[in-house]
């Protein structure tokens, strides 16, 4: 069987040359066995257009750099096999993030801001003793924390979120997932009211309108809907208690 010819419709825009209006450019390449979008995009850049901008680092769905809209669905280009796609493939950069050019967006600034706003560190007044034996954590609990920790910050959940697209201050599913991780962690001494000040508002959990595009998109399957519901329930209790 002869290989399929893949037709890519790729979004092109460089903010440095605004006189060239945003448009989609078409590229054709022959499909190869076990081809990922990572391979296909590199081929296009090597052989057809060296100016095409896109981000990659690990090509193993660990670094979270290559999130993009693939035929409308947000996912990682490195873990998407072309054989799972129709021969016409439309690629857009992730919405909601600062567009650097073509398929490349700046997720770093966004995530840095989210980390600061959710105060993503263990809050404790305990002084660290490097000679003491490490404190043990219950296996089930550590697995639960790990479930949230698996987030690779690709930004797919933020890109597809309608609220994040119209409310730039909304911390998104990844932000709420991050908070849930600290809520579970017994080493973090924040009480429910302190968490309420962080996420008990419309920029946090009560800004979520429940469209669950995040849950439908997470390329590594963090159970975002469960995390959102968990934080929502916790914050409802905290809101109820609050004077």
């Amino acid at each position, binding site marked *: 069987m002869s290989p399929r010819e893949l037709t890519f419709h790729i979004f092109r825009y460089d903010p440095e040359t605004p006189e060239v209006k945003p448009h989609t450019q078409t590229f054709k390449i022959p499909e190869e066995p076990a081809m990922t979008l990572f391979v296909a995009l590199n081929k296009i850049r090597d052989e057809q257009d060296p100016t095409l901008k896109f981000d990659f680092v690990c090509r193993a769905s660990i670094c979270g750099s290559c999130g993009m809209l693939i035929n*409308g669905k947000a996912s990682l280009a490195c873990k998407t096999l072309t054989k799972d796609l129709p021969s016409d493939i439309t690629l857009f950069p992730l*919405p909601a993030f600062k567009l650097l050019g073509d398929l490349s967006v700046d997720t770093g600034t966004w995530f840095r801001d989210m980390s600061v706003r959710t105060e993503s560190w263990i809050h404790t007044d305990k002084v660290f003793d490097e000679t003491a034996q490490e404190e043990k954590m219950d296996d089930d609990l550590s697995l639960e924390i790990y479930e949230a920790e698996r987030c690779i910050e690709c930004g797919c959940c933020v890109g597809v979120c*309608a609220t994040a697209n119209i409310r730039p201050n909304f911390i998104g599913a990844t932000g709420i997932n991050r908070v849930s991780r600290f809520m579970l962690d017994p080493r973090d001494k924040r009480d429910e009211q302190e968490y309420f000040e962080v996420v008990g*508002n*419309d920029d946090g959990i*009560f800004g979520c309108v429940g469209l*669950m595009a995040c849950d439908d998109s997470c390329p590594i399957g963090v159970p975002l809907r469960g995390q*959102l519901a968990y934080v929502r329930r916790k914050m409802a209790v905290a809101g109820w208690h609050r004077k």
Partner: protein
Amino acid sequence: MYLQKALTKSIRTDFIVEMVQMVSGLLLVLFLWTHMVFVASILLGQSSFGALAGFMDKYELLPVTVVVLIFIFAAHIGAIMRHLPARWAEQKVAWRHAKMIRHKDTWSWLFQIVTGFGILLFAFIHIVAVTYGGISVSLSKGRIDNPGFLIFYAILLLMSEYHASVGLYRIFVKWGFVNRHRLDRVLGVVTLLMLVIGFVTLGVFLTLKVAGGGVA
């Protein structure tokens, strides 16, 4: 910290508004379904409908219902406004976004806004008609016999059942506990059932011969 935030006494406002949105929504669904059961009493015969209308009349329930309903409507609209893409630019982003990501629940959110505004307008007309006309078999029959009103009620029925179904789905999805796709199916069946009852009721009114010269 910002000045306006420092001056804000309670940071609970967003939480309270979210609760108002949910509770008012649930009350509206409850009202919608009760209303449907009441109207569908015509399926059991004109005397059942007449008895219910008489009961509402005797205890002056109609004006009470209307006033309470207007308050719940106002609370629901007031609470929901904060989530809406209110500015023109936001509207454009929301629609373009739904088209771009081809996501069912994102589309249903936009339809929710459209049907929400539709219900607001249609329910207003309906409430005015009922408040000034009263409730009886012959009055309902008279309205349904008018093709304009028949289409009006068919559209109001479709919009309100859709809006209620999506709204309920959203509440369950947001608070967790239930399987999303099973929930979708269950609500789909409930909504279909309500629509069938609603359309059968409309059909019954259309073919009805009012007994006793229209006194119910």
